[in-house]
Structure formats: C-alpha cells, structure tokens
C-alpha cells in the first residue's frame, strides 16, 4: 500500500479545471517531484493533498485511509502532512522558535518546556541554532525557508509537501535549502515537491511527474523521464526548462 494515493483528483475554480483527474502513488520514504509549466496544477495539487482546497471529485488516501471524505475534519489530517510554501509564510510577529512551537503547543497540546528540547534539536540539526530567537525579517531568505521547514517538521508529519520552495530565493541561497531536502530524504521522509529545479529533481527524486493542463501526462524515474521522455510535450518542456 502506498503511503499517499491520489485517485482521479479533480479540482475546479469556477469554470477553470486546474486538476483534471490526477492519479499518483507515493511510496513510504519516496521523494516525488512534480514538474511542469506555471499553471499546470502542481501547487493546487499540493494544496488539495493538505486539504487547503476541497476537491470536486476523486479520492486521496493517506496510509489507506480516505482523507478526502466531504465533511471530514481537516485539522487532524493537516497535522500529519507538513507543507512548506514558496513565500515562506513565517509568522512575522513571532521569533523563529515561537513559529516552530506554536502548532505543536496548540495542536499536540504540549507545554513550552516539554517541547523545547525537541524543537531546539531541530534548529541545531538544520544549522539554525544561533537564529532561533530572531524574527523572520532578521533572517535571510534561505534561513527563513529553513525555519519554515523546521516549523513544519516540529509537528512530526508523516508526509511533507514542498511548493516551489526555492523559487523566491536568490540563486546563491537555493543550495542550502535543497541540502535540507536531501537530509530529510536520507532520514526516510516521504516527500512531494512542486519544483522548477530540474537539476535537483534529476539528481534526488525517486519519481518525476510531468504535469500539463491539470494532468500527469508522463511519469517515471528521473533517469527515464529526463534522458528518454516518451511524449513530445515532455521533450519540449524539458528542452525549455533545461536550456
């Protein structure tokens, strides 16, 4: 059984169909990269998995449990699926540490004192120990994004979603964030990424899915998809993206 399973997921905004029947299996510990032009539906798909958007049709299973049942309380699902955004979205009125502690305190019901060792350890592990007490606007983009990852990890999620997390960063800061993803992969985290970093997807992904007009039209291991794409659309996209 796959850790995360999507069956015929359909999402519309008004008349516009953004996800037009998406099937996807993500195995435990796998890193899956979604690639495709802007507007292909990558980000919306991630938001649907995290129940930030409700889907019009289809099912999403986490560990075999349908999490897309209409009327299901999304809170418990979101607590076990972490998400990191392109624009970091740290809470500007809280320090890095408070950002990371808020949700575990409120949702897992732990006290600050109980949480502190665990969260401090996360900050140390991602080389942010000296930044814990800074506010977001005192941090570089790369640091902010790493804090956002720590914040999501503090909930001990089983699956992590990353929505173009390096797109808003200066090129020289991209590396430090991608290194974090590699470290998470090594620890066996199950991850789904929407990304424009083709080099990274090629090197690190277990599976790459090419989306066009709300559908996955080609998928496979990076070696096949990048070296020998079957469809003309995939070839054309890669030719442009890798230029």
């Amino acid at each position, binding site marked *: 059984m796959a850790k995360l399973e999507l069956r015929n997921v359909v999402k519309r905004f008004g008349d516009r169909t953004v996800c037009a029947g998406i099937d996807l299996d993500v195995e435990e510990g796998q890193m899956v990269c979604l690639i495709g032009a802007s507007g292909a539906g990558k980000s919306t798909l991630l938001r649907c998995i*995290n129940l930030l958007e409700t889907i019009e049709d289809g099912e999403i299973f986490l560990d075999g449990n349908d999490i897309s049942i209409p009327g299901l309380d999304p809170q418990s699902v979101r*607590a076990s699926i*972490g*998400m990191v*955004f392109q624009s970091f*979205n*740290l809470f500007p*009125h809280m320090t890095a540490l408070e950002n990371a502690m808020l949700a575990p305190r409120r*949702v897992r019901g732990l006290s600050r004192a109980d949480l502190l060792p665990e969260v401090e350890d996360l900050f140390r592990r991602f080389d942010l120990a000296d930044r814990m007490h800074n506010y977001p606007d005192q941090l570089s983009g790369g640091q902010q994004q790493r804090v956002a990852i720590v914040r999501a990890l503090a*909930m001990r999620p089983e699956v992590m979603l990353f929505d173009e997390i390096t797109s808003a960063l200066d090129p020289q800061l991209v590396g430090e964030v991608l290194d974090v993803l590699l470290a998470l992969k090594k620890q066996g985290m199950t991850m789904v990424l929407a990304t424009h970093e083709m080099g990274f997807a090629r090197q690190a992904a277990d599976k790459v899915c090419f989306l066009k007009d709300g559908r996955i039209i080609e998928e496979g291991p990076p070696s096949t998809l990048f070296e020998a794409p079957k469809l003309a659309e995939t070839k054309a996209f890669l030719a442009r993206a890798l230029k």
Partner: protein
Amino acid sequence: MNDKKAAGLTRRQRYDIQQKRRALLVASASTVFVVVALVVLVPLTPGWEKVQKSFFNGAVLAKTFPRLLEAFKINVMIFAWSAPAIAVLGLLIALARDAKSPALFPLRIFGAAFTDVFRGVPVVLTVYLIGFGIPGLGLPRPWNSPYIWGSLALILTYSAYVAEIFRSGIDSVHQSQRSAALSLGLSERQTMRDVILPQAIRNVVPSQMNMLIALQKDVSLLSFIGPVEIFRQAGVFKSLLASFTPYVGAAIIFLVVTIPATRYADYLMARQTRERS
C-alpha cells in the same frame, strides 16, 4: 573645470544647493508676509476690540482656567472608561461580522446592522436618544445617571467605527498566513487568535490612535445631557462673566492633549509606511 575642482561639487550638487536656497527664501518671505498681514490687518477690523475683550481676556482666562482644568478631569474620566470598552466591543463586532459558522449567522447580521446604524447616526443624536431615552424609563439611582448612558452612547458609536478598522486590519493580513497556519493543523479559531489578529491589530494601531483622539473630543457631547465637563463648564463661565474667553481656555486644554497625540499617531503611521515599503 577649475571651478568645479575648487568647490569640490558636481554641477548637479551646485544646482541642488541653489534650489534649496531659493525654496528657503520663498518659504520665509511668504511666512513673514502672512504673519504681518494677520498682526496688522486683523486688529484693523471694526470688531477687533470687542472680539479681543470677549475672546482673549487675560484676566478672565487666569480666573477660569483652574476650574476648566478641574472640569477636564471629567472628560478624562469618561474617556478612560469608554476607550477600553470600545476596544473590546469593537473587536467583538469585527469578529462577529467575519464569523463563518452558520450557527453564528444571527451574530453576523447583528454585527452588520450594528455598524450600519451607529455609523449612520450623528454622534450627538445617539447621545441624546440614549442619554435621555433610557433614564426616561424611570430607573432608580444610580442607573439614571447621564454619565452611564452618555458613555454608552459614545461606546456604541465608536465601537462601530473601531470594528470597521479592525476588519480592514484583518483583511490586510495576507491569505498566505492563513494557509500556513491551517497547514500546520491549527483550527480556524486558533489561526485567527494566534496568527491573524496579532498582525491585524498591529497594522491598525495608527488608525485606532486617530479614533482615540476623536473620542477625546467627542466626550464633550455629553455636556448636552448633563455632565458638567469642560465644555459645559466653559459655558457656565460664559454666562456668568459674559465672556467667550473660557471657550478659548477650553480649546487650549484640548490642544495640549490632542496635538501631541496626533503627532504621535502620524509618527506611527509614517513608520508603518516605511516598514511596508
């Protein structure tokens, strides 16, 4: 070429200095002109002597000022208990208007009606209707006090405005903050309380400061229903001494409070604009 080296300035810098000098000269000249015109021309008006005696009478001012200051304490007192009540009620109304749960639909309607009504009626009218109307029910002391019902009128009116400002503050917090909070597993309520509201409130502090300044002045409207606050006290002196100078004294006392407060609000506003850019 030699000139430029000697001055150590580029031609742009020399031009800017020249422009600045010119601007200073024009500003000084026009200020002097206006002041001279006022000082010379106003006393030439036919009624000046009478106005001076009635409005700017030093002896009357000295005599009435301490009592005016005393009466101003009542303004401060009414302000002091109204302002926190307005902050709380305003926030509650703002939250009620944004309530999403269908069970709270009546609250939403109530919130909308509340802001419509109290923003739509002149403050002085609300003060009259509530200040005379409710004691008219024949309530026993102290429940017939105009202090209570006058304050309530101010609280209701100002809460309506303050609620709208809080709402604009809530809207000013970007959607992505909500997404981030929800994605961590926080409930709608926790998201509002821990993430949205702290930012929203901070964003509207300068606007709310301006509401406080307006409230400080509008406390005087309670004079119409009884309390002898500073405006009413000045009126009493006017009748007693047949002089308008007490009103000028009252105005001075207001300005001493409101000008620093206004400057501070402007400073907060400017700082916020800087931070956002």
